[in-house]
């Protein structure tokens, strides 16, 4: 098992005050909260911060942790010395069910207290199971066509003796066609089991998209950068562009400026009603590297009365 340097995780010195520790925790928690920070790895980081604070935020636990000595380095192979924690008693709440093995090895796991609590539940007690909430990251393609994806969730479960165990649960999910970023889908009965005769809770998955190489997504609408030559933008043209349903020809109106958005109705995400696809014009200039191109640029410079800085007042 790896040693965890909780001081380093919170970015504080070993002699930090409890207030410093609380402040550091709050700052990091705001920054890495998975509902705020959508970068990959934010959730794991948030859990690590929570575990570090669970250990250091409580003076009793912190004293026990400090007892291990300051020579340990994060990631180092760790085995707790026998009876090392004799004399410490934790009056606080049990830790979260999915803290690391390292945390459980020095502070004990949440088992004992939870087992006691569920043990009191009478068999005739009926209560609907808890709903679970998680996030699923899919390709834009999956939303456009619908898809089957297998996800792994870490779920606390009760074993036969009433102990809380964290198990990896694999679920194969049919993702409906037309879901959008930020929308949630519901898997009926996939939350916690109910007590007595009551039904299980539901599992809600919030949809997030992986960045796509072609399209940007805003709700149901898609945006595509469409490169055009200056003469196509100036004179108008019919150009070929990709859409999720296959390539189409699109008319670029004469006199189009850079950044002009052209709407292709109904070619966005196939929700009901479907979103639109916007082509955002990006005017691309041919390089003046050969003689022929340079000649044309020189001619334009000479023949056209064009001042791109007319609006700057200089």
């Amino acid at each position: 098992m790896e040693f965890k340097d909780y001081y380093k995780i919170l970015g504080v010195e070993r002699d930090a005050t409890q207030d410093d520790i609380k402040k550091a925790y709050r700052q990091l928690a705001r920054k890495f909260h998975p509902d705020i920070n959508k970068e990959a790895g934010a959730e794991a980081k948030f859990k690590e911060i929570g575990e570090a604070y669970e250990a250091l935020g409580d003076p009793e636990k912190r004293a026990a942790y400090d007892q291990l000595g300051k020579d340990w380095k994060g990631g180092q192979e760790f085995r707790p010395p026998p009876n090392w924690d004799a004399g410490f008693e934790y009056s606080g709440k049990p830790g979260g069910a999915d803290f690391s093995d390292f945390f459980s090895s020095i502070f004990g796991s949440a088992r004992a207290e939870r087992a006691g609590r569920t043990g009191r539940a009478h068999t005739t007690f009926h209560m609907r199971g808890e709903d679970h909430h998680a996030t699923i990251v899919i390709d834009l393609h999956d939303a456009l066509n619908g898809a089957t994806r297998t996800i792994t969730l870490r779920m606390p479960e009760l074993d036969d003796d009433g102990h809380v165990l964290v198990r990896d649960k694999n679920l194969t999910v049919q993702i409906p066609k037309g879901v959008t970023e930020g929308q949630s889908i519901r898997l009926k009965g996939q939350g916690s089991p109910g007590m007595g005769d009551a039904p299980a809770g539901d599992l809600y998955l919030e949809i997030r998209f992986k960045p796509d190489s072609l399209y940007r997504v805003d709700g149901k609408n898609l945006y595509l950068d469409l490169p055009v030559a200056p003469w196509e933008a100036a004179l108008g043209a019919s150009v070929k562009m990709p859409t999720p349903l296959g390539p189409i020809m699109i008319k670029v109106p004469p006199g189009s400026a850079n950044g002009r958005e052209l709407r292709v109705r109904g070619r966005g995400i196939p929700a009901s009603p479907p979103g639109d696809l916007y082509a955002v014009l990006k005017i691309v200039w041919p390089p003046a590297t050969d003689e022929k191109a340079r000649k044309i640029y020189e001619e334009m410079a000479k023949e056209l009365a064009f001042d791109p800085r007319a609006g700057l007042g200089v």
Partner: protein
Amino acid sequence: MTDETTGAIPAETIGTDPVYSLDELSTACGVETAWVVELVEHGIIEPHGRSVSEWRFSRLSVVRLAKAKRFERDLGINPAGIALVLDLLNEIDRLKARLNVKDPRAMSPGHASEHPDLS
């Protein structure tokens, strides 16, 4: 329950159809009704119906309430703060969506931790 050909569990997109009363929503989410009323007063969740006894909540409310609960539990934010955070996150999502997502600097997972003062 499962699709026989693929073994996959069908998922339904959740909508704004009314499904829960105030009591049912509170029980389903394991929170006090008074806290739900506060969320409604701040516009974080929006029930159908005019009076409290007529209120009916959608599954979208379930999801938003769960998120609000996480903000309160993890960051100690009150309903007014949660409403503001949700609005700002919405705005950031919209702005990010319009930017070019292929920018490697913006997407690098290590970026934020290398420059902690920039955020």
